[in-house]
Structures are given as structure tokens and as C-alpha cells.
């Protein structure tokens, strides 16, 4: 096992991206994710990769589109206001079936909002975010180790399914430092990018990367094909973590930073003799619905915790058995709005059967 290193969540993303074979990074500074471009500006060129601080978020995502179309692993990173600007490019990438990694270190909104932690971009991330009806892969790390591991996973999943992938975290996970192992890139069997533009050689087909689909039935066929691909994605790639759910009478569910806080609250509940478990989705799209359904067959009470007025709870409610009671405790984003484990423990006591 390699030696443990002590790094920020944002730095772990950048390190993992390089390990994953990142060739091109394009980004624009915005708090609280600027450690990512700062790290890559320093380190990516040393590996022969390209770093550009772009004039705009829109320019950045379209450079990702162009580099990815040429077959390169490409990435951009931002936070709320910047992610909104990138939606045009993300929609075009989705329509062009282009891979690419977008890192969103969520901050508060709407508008300029604030720089403190928030989970209020769950809907934006998991519902596609731009126009036209599409989904992107969304991975939600809850530790610095996962920032590292899931960034590499994002590249692989994105290449494998030809769907843009987002790493969705917040300033707690992004700014937090933890001891991690910088694992080597896992071996994954990935198909060659035969669709990429490369310069059409005599006898080779012309490769065109595009989202315009005007042929009779072409667009409808595309949508159904993607619909099927999302199903395959859900069957094969859903990730989640269950802690002490086996005998649980109440299951706390949360992702990312709130899952970390809830983890300790669950320990406090166990110490107090309450049978409480934790269900943490790691992939937010695909949402691990079948795992929620299975859990809700035996545990009828859920408590959903979010840094918002409730967004993921939609997916939880859509997933669990109909007779399941899903309660909610949220701290909408704002300075000083981070709930403590003690606070969540109190909520557990309130709804515990």
C-alpha cells in the first residue's frame, strides 16, 4: 500500500484527474474550487497536458467539447454560477454523446449566493441542467479519498457510456484535508474512441461529432437509445454505502458532506441504544433506487438530511416502497448553516419510532 498523503479535497480531484490520464483542463477561477485550476496549472503541463485559464465558463466547457471530440480526456471545474453558464456546452456534449468530466464544488445560490457549503444544486446536476432532456452521470464523494477515487471513476464511466460525468461536492468536502492513499489508476476495459475526429484517412469513414439530428425519426431514436443507456447505467453502475442498516428501525439518508455529519449522528444514536442506520447514495445519477426499495421493504422510516429545503428527497420518495414514511431535515444554504452531528441526532430522536 502506498504512503498516506494529506491533501485537500479539491487537490485530490486534480491529482486523480492527472492519474486518470487527463490531457486537457480548461477552467475559470471561482471560489470554492480554485485549488483545482491552481494545482493543474502547476502540475498538468509537467505531464505534457494542456492547461488553459479560459476567458469564460462557456469558453471552458466548449474547449472540453472540442478536446473530447478529438478523443482526449478533458475536464473543467467550477461552482454554481459557473456551472449554470456551462449548461449550454454540457447539453451539446450530451447531444453529441461526448465524454468529459465536470467538477462542481457547490456553493450557495441562487444568483451570486455565497461561498459556503450547499447541496442546493442537486436538481441542476441530476436532472441534466441544460435544455433538451438528458441526464449526466453524477458522483457524490463524501471524503477526500472519494474525491480522488470517484474523479478517476468519473473519467472511466464517462468514456464507457459516452455521457458527461459530474463530480458533485461542496466546500466542506472540497476544502477539507484528509489523509488518503493516492491509488494508481485502476485497469478498466474501455472501448477505443473510434468515433473521435482524427483527420479522415482514405478508406476510413468520415467522423462527425454533432448534436443536430434532422433525419426522420433520428432524434426520437436517439432519445430512446439514451433512455436505455441510462437504464443499463442504473443496473450496472449504481453505487451506495449502507452503514448499520441491517436491523435499523430508522434509516438516515444523505449524500456528500451531510452524509459525513450524519454518520457521526448515527453513531451517537447507536450509543443511545437506537437502531439507526445510514444510507448514502454515491451515484446521484444513476440514483440507487433499487437499493432504497430493498431497504424500505424492511425499514419503514427514513430521515433525509440535506443542505437545502429538500431536493434529493424527491428521488428517495420515488424509490422507496409506498408505505414508507420519509421525514426531512434541511438546512438551506447560508453562512453558519452547517448542521452538527448533535443537531441531526436530535432529529433522529424526534422521528425515531
Amino acid at each position, binding site marked *: 500500500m502506498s504512503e498516506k498523503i494529506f491533501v485537500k479535497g479539491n487537490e485530490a480531484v486534480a491529482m486523480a484527474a492527472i492519474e486518470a490520464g487527463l*490531457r*486537457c483542463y*480548461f477552467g475559470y477561477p471561482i471560489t470554492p474550487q480554485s485549488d483545482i485550476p491552481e494545482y493543474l496549472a502547476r502540475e498538468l503541463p509537467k505531464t505534457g497536458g*494542456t492547461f*488553459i485559464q*479560459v*476567458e*469564460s465558463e*462557456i*469558453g*471552458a466547457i*466548449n*474547449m*472540453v*467539447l*472540442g*478536446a*473530447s*471530440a*478529438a*478523443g*482526449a480526456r*478533458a475536464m473543467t471545474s467550477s461552482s454554481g454560477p459557473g456551472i449554470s453558464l456551462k449548461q*449550454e*456546452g454540457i447539453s*451539446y456534449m450530451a447531444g*453529441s454523446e461526448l465524454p468529459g468530466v465536470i467538477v462542481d464544488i457547490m456553493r450557495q445560490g441562487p444568483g451570486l449566493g455565497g461561498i459556503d457549503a450547499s447541496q442546493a444544486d442537486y436538481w441542476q446536476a441530476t436532472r441534466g441542467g441544460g435544455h433538451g432532456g438528458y441526464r449526466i452521470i453524477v458522483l457524490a464523494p463524501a471524503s477526500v479519498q472519494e474525491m480522488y477515487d470517484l474523479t478517476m471513476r468519473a473519467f472511466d464511466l464517462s468514456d464507457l457510456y459516452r455521457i458527461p460525468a459530474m463530480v458533485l461536492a461542496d466546500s466542506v468536502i472540497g476544502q477539507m484535508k484528509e489523509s488518503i492513499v493516492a491509488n494508481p489508476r485502476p485497469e478498466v476495459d474501455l472501448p477505443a474512441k473510434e468515433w473521435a*475526429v*482524427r*483527420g*479522415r*484517412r*482514405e478508406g476510413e469513414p*468520415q*467522423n*462527425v*461529432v*454533432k*448534436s*443536430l439530428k434532422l433525419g426522420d425519426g433520428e432524434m426520437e431514436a436517439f432519445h430512446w437509445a439514451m433512455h436505455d443507456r441510462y437504464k443499463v447505467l442504473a443496473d450496472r453502475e449504481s453505487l451506495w454505502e449502507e452503514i448499520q442498516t441491517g436491523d435499523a428501525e430508522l434509516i438516515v439518508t444523505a449524500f456528500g458532506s451531510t452524509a459525513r455529519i450524519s454518520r457521526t449522528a448515527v453513531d451517537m444514536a447507536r450509543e443511545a441504544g437506537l437502531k439507526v442506520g445510514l444510507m448514502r447514495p454515491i451515484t446521484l445519477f444513476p440514483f440507487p433506487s433499487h437499493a432504497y426499495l430493498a431497504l424500505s421493504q424492511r425499514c419503514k422510516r427514513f430521515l433525509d438530511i440535506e443542505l437545502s429545503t429538500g431536493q434529493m428527497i424527491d428521488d428517495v420518495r420515488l424509490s422507496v416502497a409506498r408505505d414508507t414514511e420519509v421525514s426531512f431535515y434541511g438546512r438551506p444554504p447560508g453562512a453558519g448553516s452547517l448542521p452538527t452531528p448533535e443537531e441531526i441526532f436530535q432529529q433522529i430522536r424526534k422521528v425515531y419510532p
Partner: protein
Amino acid sequence: MNQVFSRPISLKDVQTHFCPGCQHGAIHRLVAEAIDDFGIRERTIGIASVGCSVFLYSYFDVDVVESPHGRAPAVATGTKRARPDRIVFTYQGDGDLAAIGTSEIIHAANRGEAITVIFVNNTTYGMTGGQMAPTTLPGQKTSTSPEGRDISNDGAPFKMAELLSNLDGVAFSARVAVNSPKNVLQAKKIINTAFRYQVEGKGFAFIEVLSACPTNWGMNSLQANQRLTDEMIPYFPLNVYKNKGNL
């Protein structure tokens, strides 16, 4: 018997969707000839924009990436940086490049990206039906400037070739037209020079091509050509504004 005239091999043998009298076809041909002349078809990647130029991939027999509206220079930047050994060109209209994509073109030019930009200026949004473009001439009537472009309200037309030539990152900037045999020959020479810049790795090259849009101008082909001579060229002078490498 010697064949003295044929289709460039970089163009497909298909009918275009362009309107009668439209000059996109002539411009496509000159670009394809340049690609043929340098023997670079097998390593050329085109970046299509949004507007009448979107079907680039239907006519050019090269690999193509379709870009969001105005973002072709950013897409080209990504493609060229990922594949520096390839020849990457964008082909954009005036609404695409000089309105919604102003930021992308100026910054790609300023970075001196090693790409070639073909900018087709026909003073109107062709695909969407003849609305006012950033290059619409003062007083020119369009569907969104029914009384004629009013500079006090809409600003003056962008002169992109001149504007970009002021940026240090730009190696070559010129304006040409394809409305007469003489101008076509001159345009061919200059478009070739623009590609030579990229082939020789000498920096960012920009070509503005004045083009007629008879359909949206409400004219026949001859009238449109005449308008180009009488109104457009005086406002948008044909010139090489920058030729850093004296190629």
C-alpha cells in the same frame, strides 16, 4: 484528354442546400482547394458553427465537430490543443462569430491559437430568415430592422478583420470577396495563405469573406453581387490587414 476543372477531393459530390446565388458554395470550394493544395485532407478537422454553415460535414469530406452557436473558436482550441498535429479550421457566419461568439473569437485570437478561421460575412442571419446581424450595414433593412439599421440604436457594423488585426496574438488577418473572377482568384490566394500559416505552425489566421445572400436581401443573384460591390466593399474594404510572417 487533360481534365482542367474538377471537384476538389476535399468536397463531397453532393448537392448543397444553399439558395441560388448564395456564395457559401464558392467559399466552400476555395477552402477545399486550399486543403487539397497543401495535401492535408487526411489530417484536417473542421469545426462547424450554427447557421447556414452548420452542414459543413455534409459537404466537406473531412472529420467535423459541430459547435454550439458562436463557440467554434473555443471548440477548435480544445481540438487543436488535444491534437496539435492536426489542421483545425472553423467556418462561421457573422451572427455566430461577431455577435453571440464575440468573446470566443477574440480570446482565441488573442491567445494566438494555431487555427484558421473562415468568417463569412453576408450582413444578415441567413438560416433564421434575414434578421439584423452585427455586420448589417447602416440603413440596411432586415426583418428585425424594418426601418433600416439605426446606428444610434444598434451601433455600427463590426469590422472584424480590422478589429482582430490589432491583437498581438493574430498572425494573419484579411478580408476578401468572391463576387467577381478577379476577387475569387485573390480570395483563393489569401485563403491559401491563411492555411499556410497553420501548416507552417506560424499562428492564428483569420479570413473574412464577404458573401451575398440574395434570398434574404430580396434580390436576384446579379443584384446581390452588385450590392456587394456597391455597398459592402466600400464599407468593408478588401485588404490584408496583418501578415506577420510575410507569407
